[in-house]
Every structure is written in C-alpha cells, then in structure tokens.
C-alpha cells in the first residue's frame, strides 16, 4: 500500500495507507493500531479504493493533543474524510475504530454509504464486563485478542526480537503512546454514551463478530442488533477479536460486496 500524509483542518497530521480503485472504503483501526502486516487491506484494495488512516498518536500520525473526547474523535474522522476528498464512503471500523465509525455515522448518517462494524467497542453490559486492557502488559494482549494466541502474538509484534532490549523498549513506548490515546475513549469503561445516540443510525449496517471474541464477547453483538435493528450480523467461526487479521478472506468478500464493488 502507498502512504500519504494529510493535514486536517483542525491541524492533525494523519498518515493514510491508500490503494485500489473503485468505490471508496475507509477502515478505522482498533486500539492496538494497524499491525505491521495488514494483508486484509491489500486484498480489499483489489476490489475497491481503500483508505486506512492512522489515528493521531498512532504510527506516524500526530496531533493527539488536539483530541480530548468522543466528539473530537468523531469530528476528526469526518475531517479526515474531508481532507481525502472522499464522498459517501463505506465506513468500516474495528473495535475502538468501530466505536468512532458509529459515532461518525450518528452525526452524519446520510454521508455514509454503508457502516460495517467489526466487534465494535462503545457499549457496556454489566453482566459481560470487557477485560481491562489498560491493566495488562502489552505482551499479554495476544491471548485475549486472538483465537490462536501464538499466531496472534507474532502478528502483534511483527516478529519482534525479544532479546533486543532496545527494540522491546521502542515497542513498549509505542504501545504506551497509542494506548494512551485509546484511553481517552476507553478508560476506565469503554462507554461514552454511544447507545443513546444510535437511534440516529439509519445507515445500512453490517455487524461482524468473531465467534470466539474474548475481549468483547458475542453477547455485545446481540445488544448492537437491538440498538441497530437494520444491521445484518455475520459471525465468523474460528476468529477472536482480531477478525481482520484472523479471517481476512470472508471479511474481504463481505466488505467488497457492501461497498458496492
């Protein structure tokens, strides 16, 4: 994929991974950011025009100090769409990115072609508390995020050499920076009142959930279905929370289809 850096009207500098032609699709990553390898995006770019912006504070993007609360993040999302010059995209959000995408669609439901939410954050069910990522060491994430934690750990770290202290330190600092930004939306409870705004969501919608999601369990899909009745729910067997990285094949064909490719 190519990368370009855009500047939003608010002043954030955002690196966008970009490839493909056709109907526009914007992918918003989750709290752990885009991983070193993102094959699902490459595959998707064979079918439509894919934009994957990194949130400020993630990867090469800066300007996280400009974003304080949920409204800031949702408007930032639209600022990025505007700066890219894209009209009526399919909006795809994974985990925390799903929370942001849903808020964006609640603000401007008519500006979204289709909303696809992959195991989105943003709701809280007292009987199914979501594990506290902020009280975990980054090396503990894999078992919670992936159906196959061993393969997942390799994906998360991109084959990091754990005997190289400098590299481990850099990984740790990068994680602290990214998750520090995520905390603005997810800490201490990943609920910023989205449920009371979802009535505005008239956009065609799809919910995609890993059958074995240990972070945001499948019970949340049911709640989303109640709040967004028009959404179609697709449950992915053999996947955990990181569906895009675990089951790219099925995901890519669904996303290409709903984007109108």
């Amino acid at each position, binding site marked *: 994929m190519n990368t370009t850096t855009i500047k939003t009207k608010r002043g954030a500098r955002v690196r966008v991974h970009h490839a493909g032609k056709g109907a526009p699709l914007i992918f918003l990553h989750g709290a752990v950011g885009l991983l070193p390898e993102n094959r699902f995006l490459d595959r998707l770019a064979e079918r439509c025009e894919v934009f994957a912006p990194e949130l400020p504070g993630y990867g090469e993007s800066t300007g996280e100090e400009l974003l*304080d609360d949920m409204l800031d993040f949702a408007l930032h999302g639209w600022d990025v769409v505007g700066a890219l010059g894209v009209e009526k995209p399919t909006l795809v959000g994974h985990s925390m990115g799903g929370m942001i995408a849903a808020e964006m669609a609640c603000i401007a439901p008519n500006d979204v072609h289709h909303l696809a939410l992959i195991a989105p954050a943003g709701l809280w069910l007292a009987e199914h508390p979501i594990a506290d990522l902020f009280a975990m*060491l980054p090396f*503990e994430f894999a078992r919670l995020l992936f159906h196959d934690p061993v393969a997942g750990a390799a994906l998360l770290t991109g084959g990091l050499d754990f005997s190289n202290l400098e590299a481990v330190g850099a990984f740790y600092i990068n994680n*602290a920076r*990214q*998750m*520090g930004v995520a905390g*603005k939306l997810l*800490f201490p409870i990943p609920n910023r009142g989205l449920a009371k705004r979802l009535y505005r969501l008239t956009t065609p919608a799809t919910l995609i959930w890993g059958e074995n999601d240990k972070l945001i369990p499948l019970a949340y899909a049911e709640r989303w279905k109640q709040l967004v009745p028009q959404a179609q729910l697709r449950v992915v067997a053999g996947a955990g929370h990181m569906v895009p990285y675990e089951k790219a094949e099925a995901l890519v064909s669904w996303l290409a289809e709903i984007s109108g490719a």
Partner: protein
Amino acid sequence: MRFTWFNLMPWPDLPDDFRERYRSVWVDIPNNLYDPRRGHFVYHQYMDQLEYADSLGFDGIGVNEHHQNGYGLMPSPNIIAAALARRTSRAAICVIGNSIALYNPPIRVAEEFAMLDVISGGRLIAGFPVGTPMDTNFCYGQIPSVTRDKYREAHELIMRAWHEDEIFAFDGKYTQLRYVNCWPKPIQKPHPPIYIPGGGSIETWDFCLDYDYNYSYLSFGGYKRGKQLMDGYWERVAQRKKDDSPYRAAFAQIICVGETDQQAEELYSEHVRYFFNRCLHVYPGFADPPGYRTIKTLKAGVLSQLTENALSKFPSLTWKDLVDERYIIAGSPATVRDQMVEMIKGLRIGHVFGLFHNGNMPDWKTRHSSKLFAEKVMPQLRDLWPDWKHDTRWWPQPMENRVQPERSLAGAERP
C-alpha cells in the same frame, strides 16, 4: 536538617500466604481482609504514635493519601491531620498530600488545607501529588493520558484561590466555577509550603522548579537506588540556575533503630519483611498504564519505583540484603547515624521522612525505635547543612501565640 515522622498506616493482619493467594495489595485487594472493629484500634494506635513523635521532638508528623490499599489506610489524610491538629501544637503537620486531580471540584483542597492550616495555627505542609496510577487511574478512574493536564489545572485553581483576594470566575477545561472565593484562607501567606511527591517523572522536577516547590522523592528502594534519580534532579536544578539549597528536596526512608545492630535485627526483621513481601505486592499491570507517564519520561528511561525489576526481588531479600543494600537504614544508633549522614549528604536533602512504623510492627517496638532515633541519632544530624541553616522557605511559619488544644480537656469548666 528537619525530620518528619511518617506513618503509612498499613493493615497489620495480611495473611502469611498473601502473595500466593492474591495478585495485589492495591486496587483489587479483597475487601473482606479488612475488619472495621480491628480497624478502630489500628487507627487509634497509629494516631497515638504520630502524637508520640511530636512529643519526642520530631519536626513534623506526616500522613499521605492512598485508596484501596492494604498498606495505606488513609483515603482521606485530611481527616487524620485534623485529629492530629487537635492533639498536638508543636510539630508541623505534613499532608503529603492530596491528589488534587481527584477532587471535584479541586477547590475542595484549597478549603480543607486552609481549614487545617487555621486549626493547627499555621503548621501545615501541603503536598500535591499527581498520584500513583493505582490510586488515580485504577481506583479513581481518571484517564491516564489526561491525569497530568487535570492536575495542572487543579493546581492553577487552588493557587489562584489562595493568592487572590477578589472573587473570580474560573473557566477551566475540567472545572468551571462562577464564584471562586476560598473561605477560610490559610494562615500562612500566601500559602503553606508546597511539597510535590514524585516517583521520577522529569516533568515533575521542572514543575517544582517553576514554582520553587519542594521535591519529595518517596521511594521504598532506599538511598542507594534513589541516588541516580536525585542526581538527575540536582542536575536539573543547576541547569535551571536555581540555588542548591538541600531544603528543596526530601526523601522517604525506612529507619529501624535498636540498642545494637543485633537487637535491631531481632526486633524489626519480621516486620520489615512483612512490609516488603506483603505490603509491596502490587500487580505490575496497575503500576504503569499507557498514557500515565509522558513519552518524554519513558524515553528518558526513568522507570517508576514499582516497575523496576528491583521490586520483584523484594520477596527473596533477607534482613542482611535489606540492610547491606540500604533498602532500609537499620542498626544501633551509631550505625544508623553513619548511614543517615551518607544518605543526607549523598542525596543532598534537607528533609527526611522517616518511616519508623513498618508493616505489622507492634506499638512498643515502633516507639522504641522512634525514641532511640530522637534521642541518640537526630541531635547529631541537625547541623549537616550549616550554610543553609536559616533557609526556612520550605518549612511552616506558625503563629506564635497559638492554641494548645492538647492541653484543654473536653467538657472541663473554663476558669
């Protein structure tokens, strides 16, 4: 030199297998380990000890704030400080401190500290910690990456409330108040001495120097491990072209004094090991949530005390290790004096927060150690900074003709 007698107020009945059975002494420590009826006696014993320290001639008596913590039973140190203000009239009352980002609105701290200063006749030292991640983020739900900004704003509000004589409106990001009007105001003008406890964020050094606040390094790692950090602080002081008065800095140290080295080990070993093995058993995931420390601090590699590998070594440390590695200063009055000199000179500190009660130490041993220190050690350490003898910038200036409430009997007829 000035010496403050500090009590963390640990719960003394953590079970022998605490480490094996529970993941953390802090945040999610099981609530049923606390017995309120036993707690009644524990609180009174600890407050008696603080008052005893006043009678021994310690310059200050100190309390601090922790939440959901098995070794710190003071969610509200101001309550303890208020009780101490009524039963003492001499020593400074060090509240180190109130985590100002946690008070809503933070004007509450300006008011309560002013009350304490007024009741005590101007004896208050006011501490403003950013707060540990355990207290601030995990117990009190503050967003880690926002904590410092909220702290900064709370500080601004409190200082303006103390400094300004006119009512003002405060339009903050986190607090908006139409009528800021601090009633009462502190006796000490414009405000009590401010101490900033820090673990090792370099931003904290600059903050202290910007306002000329005392920097208090609160660590349980002892002065050998504290040296590198304090050296960094003094380098920063020099870079900022501030004077190097040792009274700019304070250090917390576990101190155990016996008649002999041998007696110190016999009396205190068990209790110090209780402290290190059970009280400092904190789940590492609570120690450093992403966003709490700035990227600048992370890149500088200054790790907070609780994330150091040293912590994981505590359980296997013997008394000899703890003494030889100077996690604690322990032994006969002569031994303790020599090591205190080494610490005070090495770290360049004018204030010591002495931790004399440790873990599950019984009352008589705590008093024994404190008395030996006050009588046989403290007098010999008084004049270690002759050039700065008259520097009182970081010490309270109480009223001279203040009330001595400990001498009045409740309910007694007035003459």
